[in-house]
């Protein structure tokens, strides 16, 4: 059986795939929370990159520390974004992004 070796490029391609799926979700979804899920996918893809580089090209744990900060900021972002979505829902009774055109000139 040949030796299978997972290289850095494999992790980066996995992360690129995940990022593209996130882009698709953000662009095609109508529901605001579904768009938020797409953003979560993209953030996770970026974190995979950080940790993969920490493993393969860094001697220390700098990449992992950056991934931790990224996770913390993502948590704060989700809390505020959901508050905004719920606030919009209270005002307009919908979270359909096509109908949120109150600010349209």
């Amino acid at each position, binding site marked *: *059986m040949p*030796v*299978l070796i*997972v290289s*850095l490029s*494999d*992790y*980066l*391609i*996995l992360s*690129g*795939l*995940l*990022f*593209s*799926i996130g882009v698709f*979700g953000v*662009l*095609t979804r*109508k*529901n*605001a*929370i*579904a768009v*938020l899920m797409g953003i*979560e*996918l993209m953030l*996770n893809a970026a*974190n995979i990159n950080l*940790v993969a580089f920490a*493993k*393969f*090209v*860094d*001697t*220390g*744990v*700098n990449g992992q520390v950056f991934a*931790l*900060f990224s*996770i*913390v*900021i*993502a*948590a*704060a*972002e*989700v*809390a*505020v974004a*959901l*508050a*905004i*979505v*719920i*606030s919009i829902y*209270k005002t307009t009774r919908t*979270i*359909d992004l*096509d109908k949120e055109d109150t600010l349209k000139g």
Partner: protein
Amino acid sequence: MDSLTVQAIFFYIFAALIIGSALLVVLLRNIVRSAFALFFTLFGVAGIYILLGADFVGVTQVLIYIGGVLILIVFGVMLTHNVYSVDIFNKLGTLVMGTVSAIITFTIIYYSIKPVSWLYIGYKADLPTTGPIGTQLMTNYLLPFELASVLLVLAMVGAAYLIRSEVRESRHKGAADQRSKIQSTVEGKGN
């Protein structure tokens, strides 16, 4: 079977889990099911972290993303969800444009990764990382660490402020009126 092959097998298992469930997240029509598919994506990413020797980041991923963010999202779905009325997808044109954009994004990423030969540092033993991360956070990254705590407090207060209920204000409206009356009386006396 040597350990590298085992590692590769686990990588492909986790990669399949991540990509499959991420596709379900963006394609399923029912948003509650999307949220549950997101659980498997986040879990697969945690597995990838463990595979990369980042044990602390992996556990943090499970704690914060699965234990915090996903619960928040499920709550958001339940608080705003209108199961039968919202058609979750856009029109066909948007769907096509989204697919094209995603394919272009992946093509750009793929062809910028492919030709690069990374400067590997060679084999690195998977030692426990919690200690070094703690040392880094308390030395080199002390300022970002403190700023992150400030940011979290701000986000918490901001979120609570944004979704505070207006009912409480009106309930205390009488009290507020009385307070302003008292204040104006006091100010009148001052004059």
